[in-house]
């Protein structure tokens, strides 16, 4: 098999994932695009391992490690997205502007104070 076929497929998949990461707004869709990019890298690793006929099979071992790390990454990522959704009420990545600098900097402390008030009340109620 021509080595260019898997290599080109991996490059195109990586670029599709890159577009998804940059263009999507929902955080879970961004995570899906990250998965596509990781899979493109895995395809490259497997193809070059088979081509080189490595005796240690470093490419395939590294692919297995990448798959496991991707599973850990998706677990942590989804936990963070769920926490953000619970605290902020949205999982859109371009609405999470708490740490943003720019023209709306003076308003930022008020917004964070308003959002912190309910939890303070809740703490007092619990106390």
């Amino acid at each position, binding site marked *: 098999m021509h080595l260019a076929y898997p*290599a080109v497929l991996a490059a195109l998949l990586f670029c599709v994932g890159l577009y998804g990461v940059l263009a999507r*707004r929902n955080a879970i869709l961004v995570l899906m695009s990250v998965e596509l990019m990781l899979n493109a890298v895995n395809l490259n690793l497997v193809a070059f391992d088979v081509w080189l006929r490595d005796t*240690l099979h470093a490419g395939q071992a590294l692919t297995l490690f990448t798959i496991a790390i991707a599973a850990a990454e998706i677990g*942590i990522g989804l936990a963070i997205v*769920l926490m953000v959704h619970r605290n902020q009420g949205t999982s859109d990545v371009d609405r999470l502007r708490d740490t943003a600098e720019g023209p709306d900097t003076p308003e930022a402390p008020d917004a964070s104070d308003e959002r912190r008030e309910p939890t303070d009340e809740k703490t007092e109620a619990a106390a």
Partner: protein
Amino acid sequence: MTLAATAQQTQGFLSTSGVEITFVLVGLVTLGAALVTVTTRQLVHAALWLVVALGGLAVEYLLLTAEFIAWVQVLIYVGSVVVLLLFGLMLTKAPIGRSPDADSGNRPVALAVALTAAVALVWVVVDAFRTTWIDLDGAVQGSTEVTGAVLFRHWVLPFEALSVLLLAALVGAIVLSRKKEQER
């Protein structure tokens, strides 16, 4: 160019074996599913098309004779990662049906960046590996026996480190998603 000419004589520039045709066809399906995944406006459909893309990649691994990786791909990606993503969509109250704000405002910039990267990468890769062929006729490169022997003979230490990492990720996910004391 002379290298390409000699390679053509021995191998044929497009040696249309059955494996190559299957690889290209499955690759087209995979790429199309990936494109639909990143462009569709229905969030649940994006997760389901991701299953098609990941399953297509598993078939590609099988065609490259890496069968153990193919089954790991099916088990972990199609089996658990997509289920996790669907649960995430469900728990964040993702709208069923078309959501008009699935794409953010920097879509043209993203398209430009992705197209530039695609052109550059494909150009470099095709130019570099124009005269290289994978020999798939010899011994199977990624059978379960070979992968298991290599993994537990030469890669034991990274394997164990990875299990510690998975444990840490598990504990971290539980800590992150647990509710605080006063919210119960």
